[in-house]
């Protein structure tokens, strides 16, 4: 019964210009997921109750609701939601889902979907942070905290900025912040390896 209700809803609400229904698009994103498809969700809400971010009231749509919205074809609402960008990847929902759906991987899939289409909610730090991080690794092969700070610091108000600067200063004094970025030795090979996966065009 669940399945018939779902197909009929998807068929009537999916915009006609879409080649494939939204729920199928999302399914295709989930390579790493070993879980069952979201069509098996029974909307019990265990994911939302167990999520430390949703239960703290920080998500505009709970994980349970996101699944319902995907299945009903509310693409716009899903993509503009902060839910997946506020997922901390704790996998509590994944291990507790009684239907064995890999919900945390679904959140990763939605992040990628909105990064590729640059259709995410305005004002989120997550997408910019992730893109900066990726570019940094492509350049050096290693992470370097001070570069990352620029992606979020300027979105803060003055009091938060000062607090963050104080924390950074304390860490610096304890020798816990790197002054120079590290880089791997076989960087040229590394960059060629990356271009094998994503053809980036010009060499840097």
């Amino acid at each position, binding site marked *: 019964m669940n399945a018939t209700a779902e197909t009929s809803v998807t068929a009537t609400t999916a915009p006609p210009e879409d080649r494939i229904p939204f729920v199928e698009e999302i399914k295709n994103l989930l*390579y*790493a997921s070993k879980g069952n498809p979201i069509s098996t969700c029974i909307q019990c809400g265990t994911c939302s109750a167990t999520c*430390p*971010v949703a239960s*703290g009231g*920080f998500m505009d749509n709970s994980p349970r609701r996101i699944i319902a919205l995907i299945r009903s074809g509310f693409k716009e609402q899903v993509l503009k939601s902060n839910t997946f*960008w*506020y997922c*901390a*990847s*704790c*996998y*509590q929902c*994944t*291990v507790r889902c009684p239907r064995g759906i*890999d919900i945390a991987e679904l959140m*990763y899939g939605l*992040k*990628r979907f909105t*990064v590729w289409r640059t259709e995410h909610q305005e004002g*989120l*730090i*997550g*997408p910019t*942070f*992730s893109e900066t*991080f*990726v570019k940094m*690794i492509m350049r050096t*092969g*290693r*992470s*370097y905290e001070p570069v*990352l700070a620029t992606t*979020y610091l300027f979105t*803060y108000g003055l009091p*938060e900025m000062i*607090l*963050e600067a*104080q*924390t950074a200063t*304390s*860490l610096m004094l*304890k*020798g*816990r*912040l*790197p002054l120079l970025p*590290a880089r*791997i*030795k*076989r960087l040229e*090979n*590394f960059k*060629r*390896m*990356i271009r*094998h*996966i*994503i053809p980036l065009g010009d060499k840097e």
Partner: protein
Amino acid sequence: MKKYAYFPGCSLEKMAHSYHMSALETTRALGIELKELEDWNCCGATAYFHVDELLAFTLCARNLAMAEKEKLDLVAPCSGCYKNMYFTREHLKHDAGLAEHINEALSEDNLHYAGTSSVRHLIEVFVQDVGFDAIKAKVIKPLKGLRVAPYYGCQILRPRKAKEDVEQPRFFEDLISAIGAEPVDYLLRLSCCSGALIITNRRAALSMVRNLLECAVRSKAAIIATACPLCQVNLECYQKQVNREFGTDLNVPVVYFTQLVGLALGIPPKRLGIGSELVAVMPAIADAIESEPALTK
């Protein structure tokens, strides 16, 4: 002497240098050799998986292939690195097409991964490979009376790897008992430290850190033990900001499990990186490490 390819990960270079120091000191004392993987690269953290999965797998696979070349299993002290590399290995094992594609990319660096090297978390090496009895046998300064809150966090346990119990693990408590300290039971021991949300959603992150710290303190923990650099930084370095935000008065030290094991093995605090924390550790451990020699003499 058992030997592993050691993958420190970016955090251990600086931010979590005390974890690096104490990992090397304690494993040496326990008869294990950690050989740092030469020219290792970032595992991709969570950010890479937000942008491109295939590229993230490739980054992890390069490290796996280098460990395999050395004919060693790979050990990661960071739960994030561990999770990424563990599951990359799983995907490559079960998807020949993916493995072929990634191996083509790896050949640019003259590498190939066949899937023989496995991935371990550092705490697994202590708990499973060394074992509690062997650790107990080497303890010369049991940390008597020290109330430690074992903090598992997320990615050591989750996602589930096979059919193991991810709801009621006991290995961290048992490790703390093995070094003579007292494990504290508290509700949020498996909850999330907020991970990268500390950057991408400060308000949510500080509230999660607050809940965790208050829960541990209410159970009268004198100190929190972690097995991940991100957990350590979130729980320790953001305490001041939590206090400012919520008007709390939290001041609980957060250390790596290797630092506590090291103290129990009689390694001087300085060599375990104790002194580089923002919430002082010495006041909490002074009694446990100083009273002991007097008791045994």
